[in-house]
């Protein structure tokens, strides 16, 4: 592998199409840009809109980013079982993995590498309690922001405000609430 670059963070967000994994990656990027950082966001998905696999590789750095490919991840955000099986081995031994325990059976899943940190959040369960299962991704994002020092919560809120506009404006409050609930679960 190539040398580590301090301050650069490489992460993978993965789940199935419809869980909002690409939105998590995009919002993290927009939030990081608000703090003056450079970002790359590389999405990958199947032909299906819903139900197929979806993931994105995100790099956030104060300086120029060369490879946008995340070969060894500092962080993983995992929303379903299949993604856990596919990506957990890409986590560095000093990395952190945030798992949606509503979608991953952690008793069945192999543990991450020695030294790596695993945090489980029942995101879908919490979203259902809040009245909209679709907000599960914002709970994951809120928890991730609270757990990591990658971007500030305020930048994330700004990114959300920019994203949920026009016909989506009615969804803003719910998503902000879910972000906050996630942050409390991650704190």
């Amino acid at each position: 592998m190539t040398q580590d670059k301090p301050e650069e963070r490489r992460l993978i967000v993965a789940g199935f199409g419809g869980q909002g994994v690409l939105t998590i990656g995009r919002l993290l990027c927009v939030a990081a840009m608000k703090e003056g950082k450079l970002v790359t966001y590389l999405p990958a998905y199947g032909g299906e809109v819903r139900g197929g696999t979806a993931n994105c590789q995100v790099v956030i750095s104060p300086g120029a980013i060369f490879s946008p490919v995340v070969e060894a991840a500092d962080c993983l955000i995992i929303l379903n079982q299949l993604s856990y099986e596919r990506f957990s081995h890409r986590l560095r031994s000093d990395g952190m993995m945030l798992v949606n325990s509503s979608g991953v059976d952690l008793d069945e899943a192999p543990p991450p590498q020695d030294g790596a940190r695993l945090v489980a959040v029942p995101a879908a369960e919490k979203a259902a309690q809040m009245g909209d299962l679709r907000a599960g991704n914002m709970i994951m994002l809120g928890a991730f922001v609270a757990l990591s020092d990658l971007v500030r919560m305020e930048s994330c809120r700004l990114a959300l405000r920019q994203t949920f506009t026009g016909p989506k404006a009615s969804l803003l409050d719910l998503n902000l609430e879910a972000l906050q609930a996630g942050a409390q679960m991650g704190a």
Partner: protein
Amino acid sequence: MEQQEDTRMFISGNEAAAEAAICAGCRFYAGYPITPQNELTAYMADQLPLRGGTFVQAESELAAINMLYGASAAGARCMTSSSSPGISLKQEGISYLAGSELPAVIINVQRGGPGLGNIAPSQGDYFQATRGGGHGEYRTIVLAPAGVQEFGDLTYLAFDLADRWRIPVLVLSDGVIGQMKEPVRSAHYPPPQPPDKPWALTGEPGRPRNLVKSFHGDVDDMAEFHLKLLARYDAIRREEVRYEVAGPPDADVLIVAYGTSARIAREVVERPPRDMPFSVAIFRPITLWPFPTEALAEWAARVRAALVVEMSAGQLVEDVRLAVEGRCPVHLLPVLGGRLPEAGKVVEKLKSLHHTLK
């Protein structure tokens, strides 16, 4: 917040190319949907009509490229885009554009092939792009971006080059550069200044009759036309070569790669592993035609070996060998099927070359 307002847009390469085209004065776009370039067509559908242009979702790729023939003959700055299978369908039209000396911009966001292949990124269309692609004796300028900003910048440039040389210009991207998002600036593009086109079919009364055609029934006419094109191609080779080099000027090994492959491989040059036993630089052709033959030959005379990294089975390597002409050994790392030439793979290949270095 301590930072000033961030004016950068967070958009995909496909969207950056579309925005740059509009900034460059593109006023006609025709296209037909295909992954992984649909964001480009969608952006044009959304924006071009609002900004003084015409968007057509054509009934086929063939219809789209032939609409460009008409738009270009009428003097408009025009563009189409597609991905590999769709670009194959456009080849007849590109040949006719070249044969009629018509400027046009064609974007290929490469995916897997042959045939329908897959929707994953690829660089498998290098031969098609750099050898003309369609029938007959012609060239197109080929520009290869390695990032989202550059996809926009080279698309903007493509319109100027197309008009300057009266030639179709191909922007050769791929599924990574097309779909990746990065912060982008577009405000820096100057207002377009297309040259006069006295040859265009404007319908203007009173001026001498213009004729746009690719047919030269007479042998001498055809030969003369070829000589005229060849002289133009020579001038393009002298004036339009573009490339970028990064890494130590006294490097032992030179990576040669373009587009996504170059973007990823540069990671190894900027942050070589501590146990890398020799130094590495990277040479990135930005124009694939005209190929930076002379500059690469100079580098080849100084290094101990070259390593070509490409998301194809051995296409770029042919141009590299033609340029290097035996000045140093040329090795190949081909990455196929939609896989990416990860930095780890490049490092492994480089290390495997150590015992061969003289």
